[in-house]
């Protein structure tokens, strides 16, 4: 590409005035729509995954035999079903040699934390009030790296010594207790255990806030009648999207059932993928209409400028030069349009972020302008402009100079 070709292309564009303005606006609007839509979807999906992953380990090891019950309801393609498996009454399945399993998993290079837990059903009782709860026996030192609790305490401390417990805000409200108050938990076997509330957490989800009750692993083991075993081992790794692969690999060494969060949330992930696919489809159609717009305006320009193009050829301008002059025009429209479009799209996304809030006035989900989206949009738009210019450019280059001059 020669400097003179850029010079001619940019001048032709400047010369085009209203036509140029038209295709620039088209490209800008197209890119703005794509950037806005993509930011929105990415922001939505990120915050959804973040919300879910704030309450889930990346990988869970469970005793064999704890299989999911058959589905009563098969969801349609555009639906998803959240299921909650109630542990069956009677003996709870456990992992006896959990210490060995923890040791095995601890050798995983991607590991962030591995934590044994003992979960089981119980009720919280205070006066006349009886609330169904889930006893969650944890190892305080490691568990907080799997699911953050300490940082989400609204009062009290992350502390379990001497029959200490940490409960959710909603449960604390319903029971009318505060830090320092005593509560009573009754197990399925009708045994009553007394605890002191040491801390109250708020994880931003009503289910856990209402039913999760944290106690020390040892207390839970005795309450749930486990013989030194645990009901699950929870694992967190450095990149949550590797969970699938890591779980598969660990399955070779661990004699229990391993489940990644992707497996547990299969329906949700499928819904997210479908959403992403439709976003891409919309982007493609927008790009096609922008391309058609650019192409049709450039075709008109070629016809208008045929005399000048003919003279350029007569003066020694090669077919390649003419071809590139028009290709550069298309690419420039795409590139400049994408820069303005990215700015506009981001402004729209941020505006959306600012004005669309929930009842509490909180941002529903934060949209973060991503450089990746900009770069992708610029590449896509420049390429689109270039492709759109192919037909007009070839037409210009192939014009017979004598004809072009005579019929101008």
């Amino acid at each position, binding site marked *: 590409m020669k400097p003179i070709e850029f010079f001619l292309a940019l001048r032709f564009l400047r*010369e085009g005035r209203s036509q140029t303005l038209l295709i620039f606006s088209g490209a800008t609007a197209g890119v703005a729509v794509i950037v806005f839509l993509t930011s929105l979807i990415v922001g939505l999906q990120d915050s959804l995954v973040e919300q879910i992953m704030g309450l889930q380990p990346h990988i869970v090891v469970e005793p064999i035999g704890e299989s999911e019950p058959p589905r009563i309801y098969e969801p349609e393609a555009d639906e998803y079903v959240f299921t909650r498996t109630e542990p069956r009454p009677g003996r709870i399945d456990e992992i006896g040699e959990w210490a060995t399993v923890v040791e095995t998993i601890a050798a995983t290079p991607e590991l962030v934390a591995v934590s044994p837990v003992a979960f089981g059903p119980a009720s919280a009782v205070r006066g006349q009030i009886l609330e169904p709860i889930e006893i969650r026996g944890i190892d305080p030192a490691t568990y907080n790296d799997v699911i953050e609790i300490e940082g989400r305490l609204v009062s009290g401390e992350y502390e379990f010594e001497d029959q200490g417990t940490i409960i959710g805000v909603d449960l604390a409200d319903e029971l009318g207790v505060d830090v320092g108050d005593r509560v009573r938990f009754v197990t399925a076997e009708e045994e009553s255990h007394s605890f002191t509330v040491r801390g109250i957490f708020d994880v931003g989800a009503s289910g856990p806030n209402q039913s999760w009750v944290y106690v020390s692993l040892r207390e839970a083991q005795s309450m749930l009648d486990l013989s030194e075993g645990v009901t699950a081992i929870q694992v967190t790794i450095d990149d949550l999207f590797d969970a699938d692969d890591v779980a598969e690999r660990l399955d070779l060494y661990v004699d229990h059932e391993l489940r990644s969060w992707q497996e547990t949330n299969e329906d949700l992930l499928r819904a997210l993928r479908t959403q992403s696919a439709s976003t891409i489809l919309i982007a493609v159609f927008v790009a096609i209409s922008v391309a058609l717009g650019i192409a049709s305006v450039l075709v008109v320009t070629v016809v208008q400028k045929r005399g000048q193009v003919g003279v*350029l*050829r007569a003066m*020694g301008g090669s*077919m390649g*030069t003419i071809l590139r002059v028009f290709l550069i025009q298309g690419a420039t429209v795409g590139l400049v349009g994408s820069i303005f479009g990215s700015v506009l799209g981001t402004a729209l996304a941020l505006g959306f972020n600012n004005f669309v809030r929930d009842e509490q006035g909180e941002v529903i989900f934060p949209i973060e302008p991503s450089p990746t989206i900009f770069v992708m949009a610029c590449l896509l738009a420049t390429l689109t402009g270039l492709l759109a210019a192919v037909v007009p450019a070839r037409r210009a280059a192939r014009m017979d*100079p004598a004809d072009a001059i*005579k019929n101008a």
Partner: protein
Amino acid sequence: MSESILRLEEVTREFGEVVVTRVLKGIDLRIEPGEFTSLVGPSGSGKSTMLNIMGLLDRPTTGGVFVDGESTTDLDDHAITRLRGRTLGFVFQFHHLLTGFSALENVMMPAAVDRGKFTTAMRERAEALLEQVELLEHETKNVQHLSGGQMQRVAIARALTNEPKLVLADEPTGNLDTHTADRVMDLMRRINEELDTAFLIVTHEEARAESCERLIRLVDGEIVEDRPGKDA
């Protein structure tokens, strides 16, 4: 004898595939360095067709076109384009200047498309040419804001940029009033004298044709007259 700048040998040109019309019927012609020639003939006699073939913008159906004694028959499109840009200049009835570009940029353009960029040397030469056509004070003006005669003078300056040996002009004054046309003719004649550039000028006006040193008359695709003009 030195080589002619341009030589046509038995050139014919036919148009159409089903109904074939033979527009040029065997033209033999030599243009020598520094000649100032007019080409006349009735409308439809084939003047523009001949000029396009001489200008390497079109190829003959049969016969040969020689530039500096070299045949152009076997040159590919790219080689033809280069040869054309470097040895020939063009002026058309309509100026076909690049609108939105300054007079200076238009004059530099033939050199710039050849070299791929603008250079200071080009600029100096273009300014000298604009001075020659008496338009130096308008060099930065967008050509759209010039008068018809001024535009045609810019077009003449542009035709001279690559120091062509021959300028082919197809009715360069056809679109101008008599007074302006006279000035443009005088300009070309002066350049011919000062730079020794050969000119071949198509015109409809006998008087102008007669004033050239050589006159070629084309009728029905054949040269019927080729003689020194009255003033020569």
